[in-house]
Each structure stands twice: as C-alpha cells, then as structure tokens.
C-alpha cells in the first residue's frame, strides 16, 4: 500500500503535478506577521499553506562562558507540541524537535547573523542571552522552512528590554534592536524517486527518499546544511538541490 501510494505520487511528479495541484518547485501561499505577542521581546507567525509556526524571542542577562567572556549567546528551542499534530507526544523533546532546533540554530549562529560581541554588557560579568523558541501550532508539512523563517523574522523584530542596573524591566522595551549582520534564509529540497520538490505536505514528507536543507545569506553564501532521509544523494543530486534552494531562497526573502 505504502509503495503503491509512492509510485502514484512519483507518476504524478513525472508530469509535474502534485496531489494538491502544485508544481514540483512551487511553495504553498506564505504569510508572515511580526510582533504578534507583546510579552515576547520579538515574535513572528508564519504560515505556509495550512502549516502555522510561531517564534518568540526572550532576552535574559547571564554570566558569560569562561572561554568567551566578551560574548553573549543565543539558544534555539523547538517544541513539537501535541496540539499541532496528532502524532506528536508530550514528554521530553523528540529527536525531530532537537534536530529542528539545532538546524535553525546553526543557520543563525554560523552565519554570524547576530554579533555575539555586541551582546556583551560587561566583559566577564554580564551578557545577553537571546532565547528563540519555535512552536508549530498546526503541522501540515515543511516545519523546517516555516520555523527558520519565523525565527528570522522574530529576531529581526526583537528589541532589548530595559536594563535597570542588574535587573531587567520587561515591562519597558527600549527602541534598541538586536544588531544583525546577515539574514540567512533556509530552503529544504526533497528528493522523491528521481524528482526534486520543495515545501512538502505531510503526505509527501512520509514518502520522501532524501531531504536537504540549505541556508543562504543575501550574498549567496551557504551558511548551514542538513541532509535527512534514508536514501543517499549523488554529487549531481547535491548540485541540483543546492541550485533549487538558492533560487527558492530569493523567493522566500521577499517575505522577510
């Protein structure tokens, strides 16, 4: 049955049609809202088709790590809450949630998007810790791209709370935005049979052979990647998938 469904999907892709009528390299409709929740220092809601993801930023003051006394840091968390998908369960974060958080984290951290030195308040004593939490509210596929986009928009939208000596006054927000260098956009390309598609639905996600997430800066530099799925990729596959991701990242950038 599984195999039959997959054959059916691949046959449709042969003529560039997907079950929901889209073409192989076509995203569903995307909406982006920023500043949706006022208790967060920054927040965003992204929808891609029926998929809806929230991202929120909270900032706290901590002691820096001993090996980087003049740098603040970021923390990315993702909770695959069971409200958003009947398959998700309560309890410790699943490996899917951990992978999602780490992949988004790398996209932000390794691109140098946030200058950690500018998060230093007093060297060796106080730095800002920026927590970015990603929460899917309805999972109809492609949480990767929706999450990365939501995280980026929430960070762009974030302002520092007022710092009163040692204490943070969360009730008063400053006008100071987080200092950003880059704005990396992540695109996930999926391989099914010999076909490549973007923005998978839940049904498609269950049938893919391989997955590649690529994170691009504005200058077309690649900042993070993650291969997933059980089938290996050839070097030619990789070339094609990176090319698709680059083209699509430009499309997604319009929403930021």
């Amino acid at each position, binding site marked *: 049955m599984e195999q039959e469904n997959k054959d059916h999907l691949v046959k449709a892709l042969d003529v560039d049609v997907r079950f929901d009528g889209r073409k192989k390299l076509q995203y569903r409709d995307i909406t982006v809202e920023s500043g949706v929740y006022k208790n967060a*220092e920054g927040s965003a809601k992204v929808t891609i088709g029926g998929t809806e993801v929230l991202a929120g930023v909270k900032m706290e003051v901590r002691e820096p790590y001993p090996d980087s006394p003049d740098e603040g840091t970021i923390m990315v968390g993702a909770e695959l809450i069971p*409200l958003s998908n009947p398959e998700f369960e309560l309890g*410790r974060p699943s490996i899917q949630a951990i992978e999602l958080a780490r992949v988004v984290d790398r996209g932000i951290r390794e691109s140098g998007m946030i200058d950690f030195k500018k998060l230093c308040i007093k060297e060796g004593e106080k730095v800002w810790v920026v927590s970015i939490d990603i929460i899917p*509210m309805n999972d109809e596929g492609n949480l990767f791209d929706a999450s990365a986009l939501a995280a980026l928009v929430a960070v762009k939208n974030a302002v520092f709370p007022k710092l009163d000596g040692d204490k943070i006054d969360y009730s008063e927000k400053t006008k100071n935005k987080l200092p950003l260098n880059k704005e990396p956009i992540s695109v996930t390309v999926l391989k099914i049979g010999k076909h490549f598609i973007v923005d998978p639905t839940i049904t498609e996600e269950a049938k893919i052979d391989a997955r590649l997430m690529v994170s691009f800066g504005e200058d077309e530099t690649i900042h993070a990647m993650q291969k997933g799925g059980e089938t290996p990729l050839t070097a030619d596959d990789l070339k094609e998938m990176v090319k698709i991701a680059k083209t699509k990242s430009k499309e997604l950038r319009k929403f930021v």
Partner: protein
Amino acid sequence: MNYKKRLDGRKFDELRPIEAKAGVIARADGSGYFKIGNTIAYAAVYGPRELYPRFMQNPEKGIIRVNYNMLPFSSKGNRVRPGGSRRSQEISMVTEKALLPVLDLSEFPNSVIDIFIELPQTDAGTRCAGICAASIALADAGITMKDMVSSISVGRVDDQVVVDLNYDEEAYDAPVADVPLAFLNKSKEISLLQMDGDITEEQLFKAVEMGKKACEKISKIQREALKNKYK
C-alpha cells in the same frame, strides 16, 4: 487606602475585551481560541482515540487528559522553561475536573480525549481562558456535552470586589484575593474553585455572584464563536 478606580479604567464588574473562535487548528478534531484582555489561550482536542498504554484502557468508560502549557515567550517576566512545572500540572488537573461534569465518558470505552491548552501570551486568568477555549474545542470536536463550561477569575482588590483581575491587579499593593471559577451554564453549578489571598465571606459570596453573571456573558460569546465557524 481605597481602590476607587481600576488600574485599567474598567468598571468593577466589567470583563476585559473578549475574542473567541472555533476551529483554529485544522489538524485537531476540534479547537478553540479565547482571548481576554492580553491573555490568549488555544485549545486543541484530539479524540476520542484509542488509549495507550493498553493497561490504562477501561471497557466501561473513557478518560480525558488535559495538558496546560505556557509557551516559553508568553510571560511578562523571564522565559518560561519548557517541559511543565508543578504549577502547570496542577492547573491541568483542575481544568480536567472543571470540564468532566459536562461529558459522558461511558460513550467512549477504552478511549481517551486529549485536550491540549497552549498560551502564547499571558496577563493573568490563564487557567480560566484555557477552560473557555477547551470548552469551545470540545464542542467543535462534536463531542456530546451536557452544558457549556465558562470560566472567569473574580476576587477582591483592597476594599472592592472585582471581576477578571489582570496581572497588575493581582500584584496590587493592598490585600488582594484571586478566585478562579468555572460555571456550568445551565445548571449554574461550580466546577472550578480555587482561591488565594485574603477575602471575607461576604466579599466571597458577592464575588461568586458577579462571576456567575460574567460566565453567562462568556457562555454566549463561546456559543457565538461556534456558530460563526459555519457562517
């Protein structure tokens, strides 16, 4: 010192602005959204579905499971650490008890109805908003309900009995009492009652009366939300 005027200018028996919706989470069997002032609650219902682990199954009747959770960025203060707390476990339990009286679980042998409540933004009254959202979600899921459950927090700020305390009122520098209540709409029975602070008997009974009236208003808004889904 007298509490003559509420901090946000409301009348003593006035609710914050309410917005309610049904069917906000497509993948759930039923869902509800309830916003009161700056407190926002989402609830999703999954089920009745088969209950695992199997030894928990009861051929006589099903169970409901509630999980109340504040999202990490929802609080006015520090980030809320994920994974639940003693507080969230207790609120999940009292929420379950608040909803149970309107359900007939003998209809669902060996099954579970899961109710997930998530709060992306909070300003007091979160368990009450969660119950209101959950009640909408249960109805939206098509689960037979004997009644609508509506919930509001009442209490006392200094010398005044008030309805729907917000965060600043709960933290007001005078004697304060916070009494979260849930009412079954038709029978007017109380299915949630907690209280902390200080309050006289007289103030308590007056507050409960005000809560009952407030819940009548809320129940209309909940039913309206359900009707609007089909407009």
